[in-house]
């Protein structure tokens, strides 16, 4: 793929996946009816299905994939570790603990989402508090201790959250278990609120703008903090801001859909294999690819075994792993 044509191509793919998501479902709609409804000239039945159900869900799916892919791309570059994904910071673990607590208390979808958002924000605050020495120290350039310290703090928070989640699952009544497990697998079944989807998209857009502003600096930081500093990069400030927007994006994603796995890891990798490692291209490409992947995965998740709906997190891995392995073997 040519780098200059990659972003338009990916944007086209994202639009196409959106139209597919609007057309496919228990009430199959022809492309003409979908287009008419999108343009505000459709029949009432098609408009209802699209605007009340499928459009909010497709937008949520795109926001989730875009947010996780952006977060993953940033963390892989910041940590100089291709195995990093959005969940290494522990933000999703904190969100999951709060969400499962709300589910256990028998609260509704909106409250569960609010709890997840609060859990994500609280974990972020905890991460910045615990890793503040590494994040704000001046004498941290000679080694990569600062980044490693943040990573270790995040992994420990994630591990603690995982223990709390196991505890919650052990104690939960059987009637709540299915909802809890679906939340942990990543599920867009409850994502029918257009305002929540638009808010998440706004968070992703903000995170992407911040990331793009710092993309040239990140291109240098990938090659070592000391080197980047001597070349004129404000290393500590850049790292703080990018970790913050990465955590924000992850929080937005898990609030909408729970812990959708794999997309935050694989989408940046696919783009890195196809397009190289220039962050100015890699970051927006990851956003488009991640969003598209989750829109397609969610469309399959709610149609393949209809009327049964699968959690989208199962599908992202089922689609993502073979694509990734194929690209790895044929590059």
């Amino acid at each position, binding site marked *: 793929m040519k780098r200059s044509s990659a972003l338009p191509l990916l944007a086209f793919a994202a639009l196409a996946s959106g139209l597919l998501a609007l057309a496919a479902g228990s009430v199959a709609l022809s492309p003409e009816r979908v287009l008419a409804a999108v343009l505000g000239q459709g029949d009432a039945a098609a408009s209802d299905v699209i605007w009340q159900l499928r459009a909010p869900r497709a937008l949520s799916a795109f926001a989730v994939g875009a947010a996780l892919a952006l977060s993953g791309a940033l963390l892989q570059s910041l940590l100089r570790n291709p195995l990093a994904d959005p969940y290494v910071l522990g933000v999703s673990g904190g969100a999951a603990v709060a969400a499962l607590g709300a589910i256990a208390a028998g609260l509704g979808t909106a409250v569960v989402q609010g709890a997840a958002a609060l859990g994500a924000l609280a974990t972020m605050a905890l991460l910045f508090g615990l890793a503040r020495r590494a994040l704000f120290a001046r004498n941290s*350039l000679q080694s990569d201790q600062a980044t490693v310290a943040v990573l270790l703090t995040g992994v420990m928070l994630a591990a603690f959250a995982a223990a709390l989640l196991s505890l919650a699952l052990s104690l939960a009544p059987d009637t709540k278990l299915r909802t809890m497990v679906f939340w942990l697998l990543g599920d867009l079944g409850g994502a029918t609120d257009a305002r929540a989807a638009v808010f998440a998209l706004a968070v992703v857009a903000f995170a992407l703008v911040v990331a793009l502003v710092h993309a040239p600096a990140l291109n*240098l930081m*990938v090659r*070592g903090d000391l080197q980047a500093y001597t*070349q004129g990069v404000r290393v500590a400030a850049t790292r703080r801001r990018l970790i913050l927007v990465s955590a924000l994006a992850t929080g937005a994603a898990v609030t909408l859909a729970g812990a959708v796995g794999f997309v935050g890891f694989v989408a940046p990798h696919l783009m890195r294999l196809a397009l190289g490692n220039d962050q100015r291209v890699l970051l927006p490409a990851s956003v488009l690819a991640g969003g598209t992947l989750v829109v397609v995965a969610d469309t399959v998740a709610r149609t393949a075994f209809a009327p049964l709906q699968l959690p989208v997190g199962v599908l992202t891995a089922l689609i993502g792993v073979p694509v990734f392995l194929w690209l790895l073997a044929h590059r």
Partner: protein
Amino acid sequence: MTAREPLLALSGVTLRAAGRTLVENLDLQIRAGERWAVLGPNGAGKSTLLAVLAGARMADAGRVTAAGRPIEGQREDELARLRALVTDRWVDPFKSTVLETVMTARYVFGAGDGADETLALELLAALDCGDLARRDVRQLSRGERQRVAIATALAQTTPAVLLDEPTAHQDPRHQAWVIEYLFAQRERALVSTLHDVNAAVRFATHALLLSGRGSYQLGPAAEVLQAEALSDLFETSITAVEAEGERFFRVHAARR
């Protein structure tokens, strides 16, 4: 800035590491046209000193100034126009061409244009890496990668360049090549740690000897780089020999 004003200066600087005092009360001025060789045994604080001169590490006591002003208050982009650093710890986690690697040095000067690329290619050629420009930087040998790192630092076009063991991975031909090329950078101020005392003699106008126990010795290279001082510094017998009209040092494995 006048030619006599130091680009980088230390006054009363003390460096400590792991509870030991490596350097105590060091006064050092580095001016354009000077080439400093920093010598000392392993662990004497040579790399730490370079990090302090680069502003990447704070001195444990004393004042560090860059272009006459305290270094700790200066912005990263201001310092990046004043000094560059060649470390011996390069990090290449992802694929990148050699040319892209050298071009990172142009970050503070804004978007890289054709002139920047010409400069990068000239520097690569000058360090015998001309045919590596399109190669993946991760596939280079250590010696090649080190010469690319030197080209990268020089592409920052700074008046001062700090180098940590720039010949550590070079074969004999390229060791001589690198030393000769650095020797030819007469407009700049260079500070280089070196282990090879003969390379230091060839390269330096000035020398700084760090014992690692707090004491130091500095001055014009011809005065400081003497057999007795070097023998004391490295705690082994070093004797001077004459060949082809030049002075060389022979290093022995023990005190005699």
